[in-house]
């Protein structure tokens, strides 16, 4: 894809006029081309100004209540676990932490034995819970694959796939989709995510966490899938960028 062709596409992409395949192709290109990305950004900013043609209405007051209630419910205090979001301790914080730690040690020593025993018990309980969850997940995955109405497709690798390969399974009755991949390169700072696109546009389905051998699996809920065809991607996200590089692509068709 050359830049001249991209210039023709960015204006269409900015108003959502490209097909899903064209859009994914363009996005993959601009991920590596700063000039084209700037052009796309400008087109999208222009398109956003079209929104001003909308007659302005006051948002209903109950909308604010609903949004804020959800914000409060989801926890407004705990910082997001994002890279770089952690606070750097101030000198006062470090001083307080030092004396606080010493006081805590003096208080806890007489109770150390009792607390240690409680900790061991709790650890064992947590291990059992984890094992139970894994068993349930395995059972769910086996059931998904075994159902006769499950649609399965093999991923087609892109030029960036390297050794990555895998399959995707979808069962409309259960409303679940499962991605199983292997050969994902395990690189520092690189994360892998699954995306799908149907009638609702591109949706982030979740993260794939490869093990040492580069294998990973993700099962996600697709009860809202009402269409007959869906495209699924496995993409890599590199540090410092919001753009995803598609590695694997598959098309699912309901039987």
């Amino acid at each position, binding site marked *: 894809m050359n830049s001249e062709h991209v210039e023709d596409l960015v204006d269409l992409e900015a108003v959502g006029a490209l097909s899903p395949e064209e859009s994914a192709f363009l996005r993959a290109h601009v991920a590596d081309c700063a000039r084209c990305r700037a052009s796309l950004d400008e087109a999208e900013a222009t398109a956003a*100004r079209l*929104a001003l*043609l909308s007659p*302005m209405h006051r*948002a209903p007051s109950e909308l604010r209540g609903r949004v804020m209630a*959800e914000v409060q419910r989801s926890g407004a205090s705990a910082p*997001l676990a994002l890279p770089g979001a952690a606070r750097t301790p101030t000198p006062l914080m470090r001083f307080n932490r030092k004396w606080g730690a010493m006081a805590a040690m003096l208080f806890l020593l007489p109770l150390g034995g009792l607390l240690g025993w409680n900790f061991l018990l709790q650890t064992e309980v947590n291990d059992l819970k984890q094992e139970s969850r894994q068993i349930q997940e395995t059972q769910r995955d086996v059931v998904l694959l075994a159902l006769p109405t499950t649609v399965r497709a093999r991923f087609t690798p892109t030029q960036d796939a390297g050794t990555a390969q895998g399959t995707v399974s979808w069962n409309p009755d259960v409303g679940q989709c499962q991605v199983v991949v292997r050969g994902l390169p395990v690189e520092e700072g690189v994360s892998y995510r699954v995306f799908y696109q149907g009638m609702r546009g591109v949706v982030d389905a979740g993260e794939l966490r490869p093990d040492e051998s580069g294998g990973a699996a993700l099962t996600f809920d697709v009860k809202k899938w009402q269409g007959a065809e869906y495209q699924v991607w496995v993409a890599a996200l590199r540090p410092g960028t919001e753009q995803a590089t598609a590695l694997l692509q598959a098309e699912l068709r309901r039987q």
Partner: protein
Amino acid sequence: MSDTDSDDEYLVQRIVERDADAFARLYDRHADLVYSVALRVLADPSLAQDTAQDVFLRLWRTPAAYDPARGRFVSWLVSVARNRAVDEVRMRGRRRVREIGEDVGVEDPPDARAEDPQLAVQVQADRIAVRRALAQLPEDQRLALELAYFSGLTQQEIAERLQQPLGTIKTRTRLAMRKLRVALSAEVETPYPV
């Protein structure tokens, strides 16, 4: 970049720190615009509310989805709202197409958020600039562009509705956007509505 744009970016950073007050300030600043865009696309107040709620909760849950290096926050927010609304249209199989001309020639009501008269003036000035730029477009290009942005129809559906080849519709849309970009870049930049 205007003071408002800088403040928007600062508030988004505060949302990363789970500052609910910062989120509330951003909500109060942009809720009317988000809701209005959703309503323009969906033509249904209830659905527009749901869409606006989704947009703001997405902001709360993943504020890092906005990259300041790629443009103004309000442009990103409006794009998310419009795309979400279009997705809703397509998912529901709704093909209600509002006549674009419904909104033309009707005097805009006073800006719904009149707390800051200066901002209201800026909103109106920017709106006039967009309308002026659109008025310079050939009618068929203007129509193709507005249908592409607001109707939720795919290019193929627009082509069928206007009884034109798909390639023609794409060309009209592309040319309209290209001319709009040039025209608006030549306008004296005013701070975006907040």
